[in-house]
């Protein structure tokens, strides 16, 4: 199972993995911390390459849990980086995960406020102070805009999509095409559009948002670097990207719109996901550029069980996702596929012989893990699965039993990472602790 990689991809992969292990830009607090960091990378490296690590790495996905654990609100995650830092530090100290819960996932409310971001509600802006951010389902692309998406992607994004999702960028909708700038005579007439009061206001807002975003980036990188260098936890995920179908169905057409398009304009969907393949590859590779971590986080949504038939998954979802996976692997990257919901009906398809062995990581939520092991054995590292509901409403004893059972049934061959099925916002701290301890205890024996 699994195809071979080309030599250039192997070399790029080896270099990226070594940089991950070396962390060349990091000044570790001590040799002991450096050793702890490298030991953890080693556990993950073994798992990725389907070997059996000394113990199973324990790598939970944390959303707002660290803030709630410290008595802070979800709003603090979006607006108060002192509290974010306190929460992040305390979480890592108290629970000692094998991976860093990166602060980049805690996005800046201030930037969204300035730009009047309309695609999401977030705490302090549409949702309660203690609730998570939530996506606002809408058709941010109309069903008659497929042609423009495919023929003029940049124009669509700049003049149609951005003005719809950012209130402050509405003037972009009336921006003349930059291709008008052909000769000297067209420069001033073109630029006059930027002198209009609405456009001037937009440019001011953009500058303001840009400064706020740069401050945020400095702050969150400082938080993460500080934890990495003093506690020795590597990040499991540097870059990020999405499946082309999810870019279309999450972001552009919405769940409902994309499901109706499936029957009304199936060929438009196929053309759109094809067009989005290089977009997704470039996003994943670009966001990995300055990060010394080869893993590219890819949350998968609309291809889960129940969201489409097996035949549709094979036709509409998988071919473009596979192209992105292989495009990233060719650049030495390791796609980390975070399959939300259940993937039981997809296991046969995703164990695709066109994808190189040991170059992907699959993280599952409610998927049957024994079936996942059977399909992915000898092909791809996998993990996840401790249920969010159990962590929220179960007891530490129940969590311990669950983790032990999971490890005993699927981790024995290696190539396994213990994790949460979902990104955890709300859970009983004693349950998270029980998961971490059970992972460390039973993860050695299997």
């Amino acid at each position, binding site marked *: 199972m699994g195809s071979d990689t080309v030599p250039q991809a192997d070399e790029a992969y080896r270099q990226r993995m070594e940089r991950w292990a070396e962390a060349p830009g990091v000044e570790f607090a001590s040799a002991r911390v450096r050793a702890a960091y490298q030991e953890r990378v080693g556990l993950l490296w073994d798992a990725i390459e389907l070997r059996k690590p000394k113990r199973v790495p324990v790598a939970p996905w944390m959303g707002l849990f660290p803030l709630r654990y410290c008595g802070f609100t979800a709003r603090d995650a979006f607006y108060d980086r002192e509290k974010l830092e306190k929460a992040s530090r305390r979480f890592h100290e108290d629970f000692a995960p094998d991976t860093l819960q990166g602060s980049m996932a805690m996005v800046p409310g201030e930037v969204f406020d300035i730009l009047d971001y309309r695609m999401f*509600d977030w705490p302090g802006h*549409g*949702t*309660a102070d*203690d*609730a*998570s951010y*939530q996506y*606002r*389902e809408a058709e941010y692309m109309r069903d008659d805009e497929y042609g423009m998406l495919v023929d003029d992607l940049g124009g669509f994004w700049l003049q149609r999509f951005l003005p719809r999702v950012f209130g402050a960028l509405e003037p972009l909708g009336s921006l003349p095409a930059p291709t008008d700038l052909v000769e000297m005579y067209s420069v001033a007439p073109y630029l006059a559009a930027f002198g209009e009061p609405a456009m001037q206001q937009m440019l001011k807002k953009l500058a303001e948002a840009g400064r706020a975003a740069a401050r945020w980036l400095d702050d969150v990188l400082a938080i993460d670097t500080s934890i990495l260098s003093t506690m020795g936890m590597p990040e499991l995920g540097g870059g990020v990207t999405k499946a082309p179908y999810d870019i279309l169905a999450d972001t552009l057409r919405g*769940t*409902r719109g994309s*499901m*109706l398009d*499936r*029957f*009304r304009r199936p060929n438009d969907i196929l053309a759109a996901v094809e067009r989005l393949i290089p977009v997704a590859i470039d996003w994943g590779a670009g966001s990995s550029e300055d990060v010394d971590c080869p893993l590219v986080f890819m949350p998968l949504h609309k291809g889960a069980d*129940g*969201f*489409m*038939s097996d035949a*549709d998954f094979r036709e509409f979802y998988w071919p473009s996702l596979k192209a992105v996976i292989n495009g990233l692997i060719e650049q030495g990257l390791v796609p980390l596929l975070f399959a939300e*919901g259940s993937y039981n009906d997809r296991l046969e398809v995703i164990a695709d012989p066109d994808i190189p062995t040991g170059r992907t990581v699959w993280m599952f939520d409610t998927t049957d893990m024994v079936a996942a092991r059977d399909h992915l054995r000898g092909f791809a590292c996998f993990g996840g699965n401790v*249920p*969010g*509901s*159990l*962590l*929220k*409403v*179960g007891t530490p004893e129940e969590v311990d039993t669950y983790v032990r059972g999971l490890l005993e049934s699927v981790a024995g061959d290696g190539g396994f990472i213990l994790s949460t099925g*979902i990104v*955890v*916002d*709300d*859970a009983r701290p004693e349950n998270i602790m029980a998961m971490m301890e059970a992972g460390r205890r039973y993860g050695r024996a299997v």
Partner: protein
Amino acid sequence: MTKAADHASDHELRLRTELIHAIVGMREDEAILLAQRLIEGGVCAAEILDSSRRAMKVLGQRFENGEVFIPELIMSGEIMRGIAHELEPHLEAATGPTKRGRLVLGTVAGDIHDIGKDLVGTMLSLAGYEVVDLGVDVASSRFVDEAKAAPTDIVALSGLLTLAFDAMKAAVDGLAEAGLRPRVKVMVGGAPVDALVCRYVGADDWGADAPAAVRLADEWLGR
């Protein structure tokens, strides 16, 4: 009955069968066209609606068998909406069947997910229940107020976030404090909801999908 009338009813029967096939086959334009032809042929709107409901029943069954999925349910809901639009001028207000029970539905406080909730509402309405949809981010007190406002059989709570569990619990507790339990049954649903969550929030039962909601309602109301 005359021979001509017999012939007409054969024709009508064939069109009604074609209508069912068109809906089940997700052929939207054809389904709407067939509905129009049936109206033009003088078939009563209630009967056309009845055929459409039969198609939805077939789809519900196929969904339970794992043969069709959420897109087919959403698309068929859309086709039904189109047919209902065609029939509207021909439907007499008083001819609607008696409702099978009153159900208050909503996504709980702090959560704005609506796709699953809407699908549950559509399926229950098609099954003949009176559905009062309170929308998303619904405060627990609103479920209580609505359940008090008219005799209510079932309150159905939806949520996609783990944060929704406490809001569901608050709604169930609110119904109990208002003395509405156990007369009013409570069902919960949403991706992270399972038996453990159902027990935690104090609901009577839970469902993994929209047909499960219909099944529970049928079971509870003994129909």
